[in-house]
């Protein structure tokens, strides 16, 4: 399995990253990518910019452990995770998770598993700069914990209800 994990301040180019994942070999039958973007509104307030902080060293270790766990559950040819840190603007890609596999089912599930685990286990923190000049740290969401917990030990599919955002829940 090819693995590439990067944390970078420079802009993220999802198409260029995905092209690298395509190249994992002739046995690859599908690539699934998730790209997380910065929204310009959170909890009803306008956000002008965001600053992402991380724990250098632990971040790479935590992401590496998540990829190893994904490789135990599914047959994967290539996994790539690229995460921005530093200042981000609305609509900038924050994170890319791209997974190549012989079959789509494994690629879809592995990609979702990796982003669910990243959101609850990788040491990144967002601080929002609001349009009114205030700034605040983003609070962790319970729904992310529920989503990560849906992947029971060693399971290849979610085993409990997914905890995606419910109507009316502020994100």
């Amino acid at each position, binding site marked *: 399995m090819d693995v590439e994990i990067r944390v970078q301040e420079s802009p993220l180019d999802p198409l260029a990253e995905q092209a690298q994942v395509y190249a994992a070999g002739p046995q690859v039958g599908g690539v699934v990518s998730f790209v997380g973007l910065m929204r310009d509104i959170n909890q009803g307030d306008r956000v002008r910019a965001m600053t992402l902080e991380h*724990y250098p060293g632990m971040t790479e270790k935590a992401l590496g452990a998540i990829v190893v766990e994904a490789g135990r559950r599914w047959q994967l040819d290539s996994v790539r995770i690229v995460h921005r840190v530093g200042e981000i603007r609305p609509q900038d890609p*924050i994170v890319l998770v791209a997974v190549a596999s012989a079959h789509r089912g494994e690629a879809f599930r592995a990609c979702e598993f990796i982003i669910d685990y990243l959101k*609850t*286990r990788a*040491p990144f*923190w*967002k601080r929002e700069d609001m349009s009114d000049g205030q700034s605040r740290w*983003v609070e*962790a969401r319970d729904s992310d914990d529920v989503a990560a917990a849906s992947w029971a030990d060693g399971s290849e599919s979610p085993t409990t209800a997914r905890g995606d955002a419910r109507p009316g829940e502020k994100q």
Partner: protein
Amino acid sequence: MIRLLYFASLRERLGRGDETLDRTPATVGRLRAELAGRGVPWSDVFAADQRVLAAVNQTMAGDDHTLADGDEVGFFPPVTGG
């Protein structure tokens, strides 16, 4: 001796990002109790109702995790990446 690191909102509330302790508390839980005993703002940041995560040598660790001389202990709020 252990090295302590504080991140994100914890770093801002405590007014520091790192420090070195010349002793080694027995466990992560003992270390938390010791830090909480320093008075404000430490007692607020490490109060029992606050969710503060810990990592020992860059791997998440619970309160019963045993500490050893030379360990690096990071404290931080719940993560919000992705």
